[in-house]
C-alpha cells in the first residue's frame, strides 16, 4: 500500500526541467537528423529510393573521396600522436624554460580555424609563396608543393597535435611520482620506462585524443577546400553537392552525410571499446616532479618544443605581418610600406562581422552553459529514463561533422511551421548543437567532484531543491563553468564548417569574413581579420588560464 503511493512521485521540478530539455533536443537535433535521413532516401518525386547510396558506392570518384578522407585522418592522427605524446612527456617530466608561455602558445596553435592556417601556408609555401620563392631564388631546387595530401596533413597536424599534448599532459599529471620512482628502482628507465610504464598509464587519454584528432580531421573541410586542390575529401564533396556551383543535389548530399555519420559513429564505438580495455584508476598523491637535465639532451628537448611551436605558429605570425602591409584601395594588391589599410577596408566591408561574432558567440555560450549545467545535473544526480535518454542524445553532435549539422538544420528549418534559415537564430542554434557535448562532459566531470552530501546538507537545512541547486551547487561549479564557457566561446568564434552552410550576408562572422576575403583574393583584409580573430582568442585564452588555474582542459 505504502509502496504504491511511492510510485506516483509528484511532478517535481527536476522532472519538468528534464522533459523540457528532452523536448528541445527532439525539436532541434533529433528532428533535423531524422529529416536528413529521410531526405537521403527519397528521390525528386518524393518516392522512397536507395539510389543515392547506390550512386555513392558504385562510382569510383565518390569512393575515392572517402578513401582520401581516411588517408588524411589516419595520417593526421598518426603524426599528431608522434609529435604530441613526446612533447607532453618532455613538458611534464623535464624542466623547460618558459614552460608557462610555451603551454599558452601550444594551446593557441590549436585555436585558430584550420582554413586560416591552410591559407597562410599557401602564402608561405604555395606556388607564389614567400618561402618557396626565396628558396628557389637562392638554391637550384624545386621546393615540394604544399597542395594536396601533404598540405592538408601539415595544416591539420600543426593544428591538432596540441589536443594530444593536452590530453596526455592531463594523464601525466595524474600519475603518481612514486610510480616513476618505483620503475626506476626496478631498473626500468629512459625509453624503456616510457614504453612500459608511462605509455600504458596514459593509454586512455591517448586513445581519447586520437579519437578527437581523427574526428576533427575527418570533419574538417576548410583545409582541403583551400589547399587540397585536386585532392577531394569527403566533407568537401558534401559541401559541393549541397552548395556547389555546378550540380547541386540535396538528396545526394544528405546521403553522403548519412554515410559520414555512420563512419564517425563506428570510429567512436571502436574507440570506446578500446578505451574500456585500458580503464583503471590511479590516485595520485604526489604529482610528477619535473627534473632538470643538462647537456645535449636538454638542448634537444628545448629545440624540439620551441621549433614545433614556432612552425605551428608561423601561419598566424605571417598573417599578423601581412595585415600591416600597405595595400591598394581594393585590398587585393600589396604595395610598398606599412599601413592600417587592410584593417580599414576589412572593417568597412564587413562592418557587422565583429558585432555578429560577439552576439552569436555570446548568446550561444550563455545558452550552452545554462543547458549544459542543467543536463549535467540531471545526468549525474537524477538518473532515470528521461535523463539517460538526454545523456545519449546529447552526445550525438560529437560524432556528426559540422557541415552535416548545417545541412540537417537547413533541411528542417527552411519550411513551415518554423522558418529559421538565414536568421541569426539558426546560427546560434547550430553553434549550441556543435558545442554542447563538450560542455556537458566538462560539467559532468566537475559535478562528479562535488559530494552529494553538500546538497543534502542544504536540503536538510530547509532549502528547496532549486534553491540548493542555484545557491550551492552552481556556485561550487562556478570556476569550472566559466572556464568551460571561455573554451566554448573560442571554438564557436573560430567555427566554419557549420556556419558556412547557414550564413547569409546579414550573419557573417569574423571567421566567415576571413573565408570570404580569402575566396575573393583580398589578402590584406583577410590577414587583418585573421589577426583580429587571433587577438580575440588569445585574450580569451589568457582569461581562461587565469580562471581555470591550472586545471585540466576539455576540448
Amino acid at each position, binding site marked *: 500500500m505504502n509502496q504504491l503511493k511511492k510510485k506516483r512521485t509528484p511532478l517535481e521540478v527536476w522532472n519538468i526541467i528534464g522533459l523540457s530539455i528532452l523536448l528541445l533536443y527532439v525539436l532541434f537535433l533529433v528532428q533535423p537528423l531524422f529529416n536528413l535521413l529521410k531526405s537521403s532516401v527519397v528521390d525528386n518525386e518524393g518516392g522512397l529510393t536507395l539510389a543515392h547510396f547506390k550512386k555513392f558506392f558504385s562510382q569510383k570518384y565518390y569512393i575515392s573521396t572517402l578513401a582520401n578522407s581516411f588517408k588524411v585522418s589516419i595520417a593526421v592522427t598518426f603524426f599528431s600522436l608522434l609529435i604530441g605524446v613526446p612533447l607532453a612527456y618532455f613538458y611534464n617530466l623535464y624542466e623547460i624554460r618558459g614552460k608557462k608561455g610555451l603551454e599558452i602558445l601550444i594551446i593557441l596553435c590549436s585555436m585558430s580555424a584550420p582554413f586560416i592556417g591552410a591559407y597562410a601556408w599557401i602564402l608561405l609555401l604555395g606556388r607564389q609563396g614567400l618561402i618557396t620563392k626565396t628558396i628557389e631564388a637562392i638554391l637550384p631546387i624545386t621546393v615540394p608543393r604544399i597542395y594536396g595530401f601533404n598540405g592538408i596533413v601539415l595544416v591539420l597536424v600543426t593544428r591538432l597535435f596540441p589536443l594530444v599534448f593536452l590530453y596526455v599532459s592531463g594523464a601525466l599529471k595524474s600519475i603518481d611520482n612514486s610510480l616513476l620512482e618505483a620503475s626506476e628502482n626496478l631498473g626500468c628507465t629512459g625509453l624503456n620506462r616510457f614504453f612500459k610504464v608511462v605509455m600504458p598509464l596514459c593509454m586512455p587519454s591517448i586513445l581519447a585524443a586520437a579519437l578527437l584528432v581523427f574526428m576533427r580531421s575527418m570533419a574538417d573541410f576548410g583545409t582541403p577546400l583551400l589547399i587540397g586542390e585536386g585532392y577531394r575529401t569527403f566533407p568537401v564533396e558534401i559541401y559541393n553537392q549541397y552548395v556547389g556551383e555546378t550540380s547541386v543535389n540535396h538528396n545526394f548530399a544528405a546521403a553522403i552525410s548519412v554515410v559520414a555519420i555512420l563512419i564517425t559513429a563506428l570510429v567512436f564505438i571502436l574507440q570506446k571499446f578500446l578505451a574500456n580495455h585500458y580503464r583503471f584508476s590511479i590516485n595520485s598523491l604526489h604529482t610528477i616532479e619535473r627534473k632538470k637535465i643538462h647537456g645535449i639532451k636538454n638542448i634537444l628537448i628545448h629545440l624540439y618544443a620551441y621549433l614545433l611551436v614556432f612552425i605551428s605558429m608561423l601561419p598566424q605570425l605571417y598573417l599578423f605581418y601581412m595585415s600591416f602591409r600597405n595595400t591598394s584601395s581594393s585590398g587585393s594588391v600589396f604595395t610598398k610600406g606599412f599601413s592600417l589599410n587592410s584593417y580599414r577596408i576589412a572593417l568597412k566591408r564587413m562592418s557587422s562581422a565583429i558585432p555578429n561574432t560577439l552576439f552569436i558567440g555570446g548568446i550561444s555560450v550563455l545558452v550552452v552553459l545554462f543547458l549544459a549545467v542543467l543536463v549535467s545535473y540531471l545526468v549525474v544526480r537524477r538518473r532515470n529514463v528521461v535523463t539517460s535518454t538526454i545523456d545519449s542524445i546529447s552526445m550525438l553532435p560529437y560524432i556528426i561533422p559540422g557541415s552535416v549539422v548545417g545541412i540537417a538544420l537547413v533541411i528542417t528549418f527552411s519550411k513551415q511551421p518554423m522558418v529559421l534559415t538565414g536568421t541569426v537564430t539558426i546560427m546560434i542554434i547550430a553553434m549550441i548543437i556543435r558545442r554542447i557535448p563538450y560542455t556537458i562532459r566538462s560539467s559532468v566531470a566537475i559535478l562528479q567532484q562535488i*559530494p552529494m*552530501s*553538500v546538497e543534502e546538507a542544504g536540503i*536538510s537545512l*530547509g532549502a528547496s531543491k532549486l534553491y540548493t541547486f542555484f545557491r550551492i551547487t552552481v556556485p561550487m561549479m562556478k570556476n569550472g563553468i566559466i572556464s568551460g564557457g571561455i573554451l566554448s566561446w573560442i571554438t564557436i568564434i573560430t567555427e566554419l564548417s557549420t556556419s558556412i552552410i547557414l550564413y547569409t550576408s546579414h550573419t557573417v562572422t569574423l571567421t566567415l569574413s576571413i573565408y570570404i576575403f580569402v575566396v575573393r583574393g583580398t589578402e590584406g583584409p583577410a590577414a587583418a581579420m585573421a589577426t583580429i580573430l587571433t587577438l580575440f582568442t588569445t585574450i580569451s585564452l589568457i582569461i581562461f588560464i587565469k580562471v581555470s588555474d591550472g586545471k585540466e582542459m576539455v576540448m
Partner: protein
Amino acid sequence: MSVAITIRNAVKIYGKNIVIPDLSVEIKEGEFFTLLGPSGCGKTTLLRMIAGFNTIEGGEFYFGDKLVNELNPAKRNIGMVFQNYAIFPHLTVRQNVAFGLRTRKLSTEEIRTRTDEFLELMQISEYADRLPEKLSGGQQQRVALARALVIQPDVLLMDEPLSNLDAKLRVEMRSVIKEIQNKLNITTIYVTHDQEEAMAVSDRIAVMNRGVIQQIGSPQVLYQRPANKFVAGFIGKTNIITRALVPQENTSKLLISDSYAIDMPVIHHQERKQVLVSIRPEDFQIVEDTEGMAATVNDSIFLGLMTNYFVTLETGERADIIQESTINSIYSKGSTIRLQVNVEKINVFSEDGAKNLLLEE
C-alpha cells in the same frame, strides 16, 4: 524542541538486495542514541531514511506522533552532520552557520544573534569570516555542528562524524559533542562503527548486524550482558569457548575443564547440552590455587597498569587474558598457570550463539 522517534517495521531494499528486512526501534526524547555496527550493516541507510534522503520500502517513521514517511527532508526540521562535514566551500563560516536560518526567512537581526550564539557555543567565532577551506578538520566539524544545531532541530543526526579526524582530535571532539548534546538536550541519533566511541558518548546503543538490531541497551548492559555472541564479540574483546552444561537442582553445572566446574544460574531440562561460554580477558583470574583449569603462556605484553597474556588452555583453545600488573610476577613464556573465571561476569550463549541463556527467565 526535541521529539521522540518511533520506527515500526522499517524495510529498505536496493534492487534485489534487502538491506533492512524489518526494523523497529523507539528513541526517547532528548536521548543520545547510537547505531553501532560493522561497516555495511545498514546504519547509514537507516539514518538517511530518518532524514528523508532514502525511499522507504515499508514501515512507519514517526517524529513524536507525526508520521513523516512522505515528508520532504527540507520540512523535517532535522540537523544533520555528515561524515565529510559537507561544509559549503564558497560560503564563509558565518554564512554556513546562517544558511538554515536564511531558508527559514528569519529577520536579519535574529539571524545575526542566533548565528553569533552558536559560533560562540562551538568556539569558532574567531573564524567567522573565513572561508572553510582554511580550517582544520576539527574546526570544520565544529562549523558543521553549529550549522546543524542553530536551526533548533527536533533531532540531530550524525553519520560517523569523527571518522575523518585523527585519533587525538576524535577523543576531544566526542566530548565536545556529548557536552553540547547534554546542554541542548536534543534527541540525537549517532552512527558509528567504533564501539569505544559509541560507549563514550551514548545513553543507549543499538547494535546492528546485517540490517537487524541485535540488542538495544546502555553501554554497561551491552558489555556485561550481551544478548548474543555477535554483540559479545563486537562490544569489547571476549573469548568464546564451547563447553557442556549439566543440569542440577536449581542451577546448572558448567564444565570448564575436567577438574574445574562452576555453578551457573541457568535452568534447563536436557541431560547435558553444549553451550558457548563468553569470558572477557579480565574475567579470567590467574590463581595459585589447585582448583581451576591449566593453561600455558605463549606470550605476554606489558601494558603498564595491565599485562596481557596469550595462553593455550589445557583443552587446546587459545585465549586472551588481561590482569593487573603486579610487581614480582610476570609469567614467562612457556610457564603453566592455573585459571579461574569470574562466575558473575561470564555469559553463556546457546550453541548457535543466538541467545544469552542468562537473560532467559
